[in-house]
């Protein structure tokens, strides 16, 4: 009884201390030294970035880094939230609206589910920019522009390149069951390749299992001569699966990590389709500030493409340094 009471008190104190700390960075962001000489237009603002990705995803950390770097550069506040469950993602949007932020950046892996929440933000006069996925619905929902990579185009690009490498039967590894964008990439790859594309479902949260699944598939069907992964962590899992299983399959992936870039440099991965997601964090914040201060819109009604760029053995060395610092 006694210790329980003590624990409650201690936990309460701990929470108070934590919130005390957390107030720090947000409060500081407005007071950058550059602000002293900057023009008066750079009034502070608050922006919300709400994605469909859970915390700790390497890809989305780069987006977050981009948005936070832009916030620091412009002296505004950016809060980054993510949740893979569309119900909870739309609640986060509702919340940003009730907090009356100056702009909302949202990724739409499931556009239908976000329609109402995005519509509410637009109706409340809050400018919205969509990023990453859902670009084809962006205008219809009233967003001022979309910043991202067309998944079909990128998938086709990857398929083309794999075809040129002589791949005839491709394994396309899907790592998130609910994500339409991943399906589009595999479809695009099938168009580009012109050969057979098989899909394999794995869990991005369980890479050990993903490795053994890919290995099992390659062992049970030796005619598969190419593997396309859609996530850098899964790419590394696939690399290990190919090596462990003694397969000759060629590997390509979407998106970068430091490990992927090293593997490309070492010739273990043929190429990585790079959508330069740092831009998907940085650009929308820039666009929203331009819109707020000068009513500028970018893209002329078309999405602003951040990719596909390709990282191959030729340019991997230069990109490696940047990937390690979390901006590529």
């Amino acid at each position, binding site marked *: 009884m006694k210790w329980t009471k003590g624990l*409650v008190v201690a936990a*309460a104190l701990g929470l108070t201390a934590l919130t005390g700390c957390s107030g720090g960075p947000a409060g500081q962001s407005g007071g950058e030294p550059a602000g002293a000489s900057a023009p008066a237009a750079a009034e502070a603002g608050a922006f919300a970035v709400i994605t469909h990705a859970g915390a700790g995803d390497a890809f989305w950390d780069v987006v977050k880094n981009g948005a936070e770097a832009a916030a620091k550069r412009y002296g505004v506040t950016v809060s980054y939230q993510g949740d893979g469950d569309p119900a909870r993602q739309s609640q986060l949007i509702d919340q940003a609206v009730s907090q009356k932020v100056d702009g909302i950046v949202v990724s739409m892996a499931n556009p239908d589910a976000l329609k109402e929440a995005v519509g509410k933000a637009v109706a409340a006069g809050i400018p919205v920019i969509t990023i990453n996925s859902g670009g084809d619905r962006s205008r219809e929902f009233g967003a001022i522009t979309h910043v991202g990579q067309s998944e079909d185009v990128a998938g086709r690009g990857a398929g083309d390149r794999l075809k040129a490498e002589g791949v005839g039967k491709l394994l396309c590894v899907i790592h998130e069951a609910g994500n339409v964008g991943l399906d589009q990439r595999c479809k695009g790859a099938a168009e580009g390749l012109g050969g057979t594309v098989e899909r394999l479902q794995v869990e991005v949260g369980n890479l050990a299992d993903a490795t053994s699944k890919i290995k099992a598939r390659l062992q049970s069907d030796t005619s598969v001569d190419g593997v396309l992964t859609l996530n850098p962590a899964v790419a590394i899992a696939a690399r290990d699966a190919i090596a462990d299983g003694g397969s000759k399959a060629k590997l390509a992936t979407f998106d970068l990590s430091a490990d992927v870039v090293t593997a490309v440099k070492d010739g273990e991965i043929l190429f990585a389709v790079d959508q330069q997601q740092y831009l998907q964090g940085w650009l929308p914040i820039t666009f929203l500030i331009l819109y707020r201060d000068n009513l500028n819109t970018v893209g002329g009604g078309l999405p602003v493409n951040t990719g596909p760029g390709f990282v191959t053995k030729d340019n991997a060395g230069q990109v490696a340094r940047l990937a390690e610092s979390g901006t590529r």
Partner: protein
Amino acid sequence: MTVADERLARTGTARRLLLRPELGAVVGAVAVFTFFAGQSATFRSVEGVANWLDPASTLGIMAVAIALLMIGGEFDLSAGVLTGTTGLITVVLATRYGLAVWTAMLVALVAALLVGYLNGLIVVRTKLPSFIVTLGTFLMLQGANLGVTKALTGTVQVGGLRRAEGYESAHAVLAGTVPVAGTDFRVAILWWLGVTALATWVLMRTRAGNWIFAVGGDDQAARAAGVPAERTKIALFMTTAGAAWLVGSVMALRFTSVQANSGIGQEFVYIIAAVIGGCLLTGGYGSAIGAAIGAVIFGMADKGIVFAGWDADWFKFFLGAMLLLATLANRLVRRYAEEVRR
């Protein structure tokens, strides 16, 4: 006023309140509210309240049903994924097979009740722990949701419910909003209050309520006393499945699309809310109102963290700390209450 026999004095209103299972949850809810209201003005505004009651409502509907089941001494791990299953059935039938939304929902309800019935039947006939039985159901449903959806539609999300016949009326009843003080509140909040009231009435005022407490407290003794234990347990599993159908329908109508992986992982949140609300993991004790308040605590902690502007990387840590704190406060009050009784 003097009372001759001190046993009579013990039935005072204050003491009776102290002995209620949900008292700890009430104290926890007040503490969590005070904490976040101090952190953020938006949190305590009407708009903020509408924001955090929204997740609390769908969670609460499930938590109340799960609480009844837990009082009856059983678990259901398949409840989360079943919300996805029912939503998928409704959307697929309405958009791919041209059924009216209400008809599609009726089919989904029958399917859900069947799953609940089978869960219950397997548990009472085989005497296997419900933890294992419903874990099996959970995995089977998870696989079927993905497999069947992809086989029928070729994709992992089915949408377009907005264009189906009867969508407008179904949306208004289950997923619409009600304006209160100039702010739109989700109509699901009313469903949640209704479900909580109904469950409380059943538990406290009907014979079925006594049966639930009896089978959860001591199964053998209950049977010996003539309680239809098997029927009670099967009915509880079907109640949970019915609640999953309600929540699945609310979600499908609100978002007009359902992902093949939706609802997975929520089953633990339901159990957490029920436990915060005073249900014992061992059965035989708890309340429906408590579970509803548990859902409120969860909703407040969940959204309060965002309103307070904390770094999202720490989100789960804060959520865990808040939940632990609420549960400890709950236990503290319950122990105090038990000491008073002695």
